[in-house]
């Protein structure tokens, strides 16, 4: 991702304990962007989507192991204006193709995380890299 001067970069421990920190940073970043339609709802939905990907990394890439890290990069791109968010980890590979769509006819307890991220954002891409995984998220603003 080409870095804009206003790019935000977070290096977070891979634990759900820091979901609130990630959420607060995203909220504050989006709050600084002028002219966002329904800014509170937009910020909430982006926060929820990124929360789901982060929690997915904690549970699946690192298997709740305590020493992993998640590198989060947030930047505002232009033409068209969009928020780009990358989450990178050094954990196990993940195959999004193996994740089934939720069965809405059943009262399903788990399996909504990736579905929610895809529903709330404009693009969710997973890339397996030599040294880990990267999730690239896009939300047009």
């Amino acid at each position, binding site marked *: 991702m080409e870095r804009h001067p206003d790019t935000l970069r977070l290096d977070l421990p891979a*634990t*759900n*304990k820091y*979901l*609130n920190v990630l*959420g607060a940073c995203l909220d504050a970043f989006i709050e600084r962007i002028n002219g966002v339609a329904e800014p*509170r*709802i937009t910020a*909430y*939905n982006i*926060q*929820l989507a990124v*929360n*789901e990907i982060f*929690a997915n990394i*904690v*549970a699946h890439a690192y298997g709740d192991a305590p020493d992993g890290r998640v590198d989060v990069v947030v930047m505002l791109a232009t033409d068209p204006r969009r928020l780009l968010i990358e989450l990178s980890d050094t954990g196990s590979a993940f195959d999004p193709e193996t994740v089934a769509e*939720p069965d*809405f006819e059943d*009262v*399903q*307890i*788990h399996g*909504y*995380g990736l*579905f*929610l991220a895809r*529903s*709330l954002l404009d693009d969710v891409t997973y890339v397996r890299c030599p040294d880990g995984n990267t999730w690239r998220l896009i939300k047009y603003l």
Partner: protein
Amino acid sequence: MALNTRALGNVSVLDLQGRFDAHIAPAVIEWYGRLPTAQVVVNLAGVTFMDSSALAALTGGMKRCRQRGGDMRLYALQQPVQVIFELTRMYRAFEIFATEAEAVASFTR
């Protein structure tokens, strides 16, 4: 996240405040294990954020209550939190009320 419990007759009321996410969900699941009743009402008036782990905690609790002959009912969902119920269509699985009085009274219908 603040978690408080109350008893209203045979109904256990769980008051949740703040952010309800994957970090908090295990504490809520643990709370179910200590419940004296299978009739549960969850007050979401103070919940400002909910993720899929929180939803899973509620869904698991609701299933557990129903297996024991009771139910888990929700009330006072705030507008931003409703998005997760709408996208996952979980509003169809839960009985959701506007007020605590309505939610508690629903057990005596």
